[in-house]
């Protein structure tokens, strides 16, 4: 187990190095820089500002400095938010996205698994049809439509939730629901399919034939096997949800990390782009690692390799 984890950590570090290199190349390849603006300053000023931040150095040297600083835990200072470090900015934005992400994940798992099983057990009945239509809608309608619609109905017409921000718990309702919808739709379908699959297996018939009570058949045999594909999906899903959605955060006016990330790219805020990318990569790698370990715990057929 320990050897397995060490192996995974080493491969994670290589993955992150690879991501950093790719990000560096891409962000330097797009036109524009953090200091170009609509009202362009004197070239001498621009050169002077670039020199101050070391952006006048050859690219390979800048790249080397990034790697060196990151290895030493220094994520650098934001160009666009003067005087704030990348750490400051991430730690101010991430808690909002994390809170929304956790609640959205809970919503996805609880409702997704529940409705997935219901749909499977009532296959081709009315409730199954309705759930599948809803799932299709959830997966296909873009989130900004849901977000704007939610605000229109619950904020503008009914006045139940604030129209922006997360000053109190009510502000979280919309972002959590809208963030969850896509994954929820996916998990319902996934759970339905895998439950149907398991229900047709011989060992279920055997279990029923043995005279096991239905709840035990469902709980012990069906659930445990049917949930495996969902578990695989949880890792990336959770990572995606807690890293925030640009659309949801922009529409609901939430100072989360998804919004910060998109803006950092629009502003060419190189240090912040790099910092948040690495941060996301670390979260994703950890989530996947945890899922892999969980997998082994749930499915005894899988062994550490």
């Amino acid at each position, binding site marked *: 187990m320990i050897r397995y984890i060490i192996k995974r950590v080493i491969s994670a570090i290589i993955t992150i190095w690879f991501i950093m290199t790719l990000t560096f190349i891409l962000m330097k390849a797009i*036109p524009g820089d953090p*200091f*170009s*603006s609509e*009202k*362009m*300053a*004197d*070239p001498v*000023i621009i050169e*002077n*500002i670039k020199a101050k931040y070391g952006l006048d150095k050859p690219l390979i040297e800048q790249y080397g400095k990034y790697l060196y600083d990151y290895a030493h*835990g220094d*994520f650098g200072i934001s160009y*666009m*938010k*003067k*005087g*704030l470090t990348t*750490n*400051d*900015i*991430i*730690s*101010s934005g*991430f*808690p909002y996205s*994390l809170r929304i992400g*956790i609640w959205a*994940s*809970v919503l996805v*798992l609880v409702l997704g698994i529940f409705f997935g099983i219901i749909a499977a057990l009532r296959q081709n009945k009315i409730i199954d049809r309705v759930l599948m239509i809803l799932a299709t809608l959830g997966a296909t309608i873009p989130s900004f439509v849901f977000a704007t619609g939610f*605000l229109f109905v619950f*904020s*503008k017409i009914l006045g139940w939730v*604030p*129209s*922006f*921000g997360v*000053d109190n718990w009510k502000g979280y309702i919309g972002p959590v629901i809208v963030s969850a919808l896509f994954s929820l739709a996916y998990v319902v379908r996934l759970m339905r399919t895998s439950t149907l699959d398991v229900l047709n297996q011989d060992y279920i018939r055997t279990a029923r034939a043995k005279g096991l009570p239905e709840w035990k058949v469902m709980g012990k045999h069906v*659930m*445990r096997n049917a*949930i495996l594909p969902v578990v695989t999906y*949880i890792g990336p899903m*959770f990572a995606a949800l*807690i890293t925030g959605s640009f659309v949801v955060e*922009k*529409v609901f*006016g939430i*100072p989360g990390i998804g*919004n*910060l990330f998109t803006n950092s790219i629009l*502003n*060419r805020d190189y240090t912040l782009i790099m910092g948040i990318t690495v941060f996301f990569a*670390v*979260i994703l790698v*950890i*989530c996947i690692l*945890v899922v892999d370990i*969980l997998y082994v715990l749930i499915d005894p057929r899988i062994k550490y390799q």
Partner: protein
Amino acid sequence: MMKRKLALFLSAAMIAAALSGCGGGSSETTAAATESQTEAAAGETTAAVADTEGSDRYLVWRLYQEPKQWDPTNNSESVSDAIVKQLFEGLTVSTADGFKPGIAESWDVSEDGKTYTFHLRQDAKWSDGDPVTAKDFEYSWRRICDPSFASEALQTMTDYVQGAQEYFDGTGSYDDIKATAIDDYTFEVVLKNVTPFFPQLVANDVYLPVKQDVVEAAGEGWEKKPETCVSNGPFMLEEYQVGSHMLFKKNPNYYDADAVSIPGIKAVIITDDNTAYQAYQAGEIDVMDHLPSEQIPQIVAEDPNVIVSADTGAQFLNFNVDKAPFDNVHVRKAVTYAIDRKQLVEQVLKDGSVPASGFIAPTCETTEGGSFRTMEDDGYPAEEYGINPRQANVEAAQQELAEAGYPGGEGFPSVELTYANSDKNKKTCEAIQQMLEENLGITVTLRAEESNVFTSTKNNGNYQMATGGWTNSPYDASGLIKLFYSQNGNNTPQWRWKEYIGAPHDTTLNPGNQAFDEAFDKAMASQGTARDDAWREAEAALMADMPVAPLYYPSFTALVNQDQVENVELTTSNSFMFKQAVIIQ
């Protein structure tokens, strides 16, 4: 049973993983996260308390983007300009009726118009209680010229103040920057050129003072922490939550604190225009600008709270004068004449913008305070340079095109019009595309670019036609017309008669620009009506060669909820001042 255990275990494991994940970088990260959460919680309480007390609540003001900084000496964006003006006060202040004395009670101008002596009021204090003196201005102005500080606002000093450029270049000394504290309450500035609008100019954000001891002790980012953001204006920083909001509270040490009736301002950062507008409709926001562009026509027509005011500036079409087919002046003129500006403004924009004739905006003032444009009864300028603001001049356009060798548009290559991606720009460009097709029979394709990419496209001259715009806060023609000076990086049409160090790619020279440069230099060296005439001469040189087609003079639209707040001042440079605001409910 199994299911519940499993679910419990799953969620517990995931949350634990995520939490350890966010602390994984370093232990500092976690500590900082907790701290900012506590701060946020404190902010919530303040806001909640303010809400329950009705009229004692903070005024809620929407910011359309997060400011980079609001250190006056390093400023370059409009969103922080507005913040700086709530926190700091300069020698003069911009108000709804033009500029007025601020920290300077009065000033004298030398006979040659180049030396200004400001006499400062003696009761002005910083928010920490120390007096505001001429030394503060001397420090702040000279700080901008420091090469190691690398201020983005450098040009605001080097363009005007003697000795500033020399100090920046390393050829002059710090003490030779001619912005000097003669004594504690006398501040003298010697200018490079005659600058009649100088007292108006120093109301701008970058000329506002900072306090040397706190700035130097705290270093970059000093203005972002309430404990180090010492300011001398009506308000002071109470809280800043990155990406979310700022709280400004009344500054009790402000010399005119009695005039400030609101306890403070809550500036909320909402980047989505539609979300902000909904919040305004729900009564959650008192003051906002940057209205959602597709709703502006309806808001302007229906909402009694709307403010529509002229911006000092122009929107125009850039022609890349170095690239075919726009290297031909007749082609440029043909396109310029073929556009129906009235239709553009009244049918497409519907936001109170004014169709253009020449380049200098009607709000630019001559020395006597008149306008550079002759306005007619309908509020639109008179026809000039062959441009009729009320309709397309189709006949003249077709004639120019024929003269260029493309009669009826025959043989004219398909051209591309590039714009920065936004709803408004898209609609404008589509309208122009259609007008050029109908009136000239030429094919125009459109290309949208992300705004940072678009800026670099324009500055490097990698386009055929591109949208452009410029606004300027003092009401002086120089701020607008300087764009087309050969030695200017914002000369996007690449219209230069001699090479410019900042644009090494522009090697195709355009002799037409020489007359413009000469008129510009003449204006900078003269005073009074001679100066006004030289600006007209410069504009005439510009319009004779037509590197740009003026489209319209833009408007500024904003919403102030009059049912909730009163006396919110909109200055003549279209920024809000909350000093005298009153909350009704």
